[in-house]
């Protein structure tokens, strides 16, 4: 795949293969992906921040109702003032099983690096399972690095509240799941792109409820 980007946006509507991207001086990449258990089961995404002031923002959506997928996301900081943010959402229904591994690696040369990885999962069926493995490898001290992971389920109180308002159970579930998945979409600055992502998300969630 391509390795030269400049303030670039990459959208993978259904991720089918592995990818390694180098990000050079002053470059900024926005990478959006949707996993697709029909197209592939194992993905390796590697982002190497080789340039000064380079940055990457990753929005990942892992919405499935069957199959087993494993997604490995690695962000490697090699140079000064690099930033890497990852926001990954899993919404799993049916008997979908998913593993998300997120590695933030800050090498010795990456002074003033800022790395963040977050993975939130929502399990909407009894048989869905998730394995979340966020990791940090930090080799120098003048950095900021953190990660977070949460796993939750459809809250019965919220569903009950919506049902009281006359919303069908199915629709209530869809509402809760979509609002969960939308959380970080607002961080995408391009309005048209935002619209498009919301469209895809609505379709995908419709399918799994």
């Amino acid at each position, binding site marked *: 795949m391509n390795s030269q980007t400049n303030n670039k946006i990459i959208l993978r509507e259904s991720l089918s293969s592995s990818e390694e991207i180098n990000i050079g001086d002053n470059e900024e990449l926005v990478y959006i992906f949707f996993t697709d258990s029909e197209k592939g089961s194992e993905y390796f995404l590697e982002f190497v921040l080789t340039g000064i002031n380079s940055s990457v923002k990753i929005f990942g959506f892992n919405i499935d109702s069957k199959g087993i997928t494993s997604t490995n996301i690695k962000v490697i900081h090699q140079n000064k003032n690099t930033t890497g943010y990852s926001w990954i959402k899993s919404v799993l229904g049916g008997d979908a099983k998913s593993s998300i591994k997120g590695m933030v690696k800050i090498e010795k040369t990456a002074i003033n690096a800022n790395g963040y990885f977050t993975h939130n999962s929502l399990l909407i069926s009894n048989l869905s399972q998730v394995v979340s493995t966020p990791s940090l490898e930090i080799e120098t001290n003048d950095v900021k690095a953190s990660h977070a*992971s949460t796993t939750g389920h459809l809250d019965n109180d919220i569903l009950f509240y919506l049902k009281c308002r006359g919303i069908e159970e199915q629709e209530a579930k869809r509402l809760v799941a979509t609002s969960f998945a939308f959380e970080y979409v607002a961080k995408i600055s391009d309005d048209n792109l935002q619209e498009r992502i919301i469209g895809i998300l609505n379709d995908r969630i419709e399918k799994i409820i």
Partner: protein
Amino acid sequence: MRHAQEVKKDFQGSFKAPEKFVFKMRKGLNEEVIREISFHKKEPEWMLEFRLKAFESFKSKPLTPWGANLNNINFDEICYYIQTSERSESNWQNVPEEIKNTFDRLGIPEAEKKYLGGVGAQYESEVVYHSLQKHLEEKGVIFTDMDTALQKHPELFKLYFGTVVPPHDNKFSALNSSVWSGGSFVYVPKGVRVELPLQAYFRINAESMGQFERTLIIADEGSFVHYVEGCTAPPNSADLLHNAVVEVIVKPGARVLYTTIQNWSKSVYNLVTKRSFVYRNGVMEWVDGNLGSQVTMKYPSIYLLEPGARGEILSLAFAGKGQHQDAGGKIIHAAPHTSSRIISKSTTQDGGRSSYRGWIEVVPEAYGVKSHVTCDALILDEKSRSDTYPTMDIKNSESSIEHEATVSRVSEDQIFYLRSRGIPESEALSLIVNGFFEPIIKELPMEYAVELNRLIGQEMEGSVG
């Protein structure tokens, strides 16, 4: 008045007594050595079989491909058994002079009078001293060394020994099971609360020594016990191996608090398997302080086996020059409505490396599980390294699991603020580090908290962030 320098040396346990022993096994490990250890201890036949079986398992297992580098351990150069005293004493006066002096310098028996419900002291392979307050003994509390327990309470011993950590669990639990010696045996009967902590103290003195103690704690229904262990060794040219297995059984409604302050010298490989089984409404808490050693690999684990069980792990690691602290925790939610919490705090300096390795698992049947994990790391200079490797394996959809981790440094603003209040830079740094560890330190018994604060202060001496 002793010179301050000497007091400091004592405090860190870095002085060394001459080697003296009643019996010392030749170096190296084979079936013959294991048979001799077992014979020497006059053990029943089943224990010898247990040891030999574990040895087979040890030979067949490879070293772990992950974690710290253990390739430098030469298993043939280690002495697996040294007996320093004929028997375990219950009167401090009868403990052999050299050993007594060592523990006196470390301040062990003084504390006993005031703060502790019972004390055990292990020197090399054997426990040399054990005592328990009279009123606890009358209530049926057992606090003795493992070898005595095997002789005196064979039924209880056989019922639980090796059930929580089976010998074939990993390479080092197999090694421990084949050559184990010493350690504490604690049994707290139904409904008995041991208000003052029981303390065990472990000391390695000889060169190229391996200490393989095993601790077994059984807290019967509704009981409570706080067990504290401390460990030291003098600096040695040759590598030392400390390879323990700790098994804790928390029966319904019971609570066990297990505190470790490990301050081994920087030549020690500290490879420990700690695990507990917790039954209905029981509570298990591990407080794990890792300051010393060359390499530590230790992940206290909790199996929550029945509804209402709760587990908590507080892990503290401090890695300095040449040290690798690979610590963390593991919690298996095997029943519905179980909850857990892990707090891990680590600092690295002077080229040290610390890793948090955690595992949270929720089995498909365990609904209503709650778990929260926090790990924070401070890196004090650019030479040092910090890693975080947590895994959350969630097989039940009705559970809520949270994990967060941060890695940062001490900011110049914080240092500047303290300096402007007239605090020297090095002291400011140790204040900040102490503050960083505070959530864990406040869980410790008072005298341990004071000791830990002082230890951190000493480690931080001369280091400027």
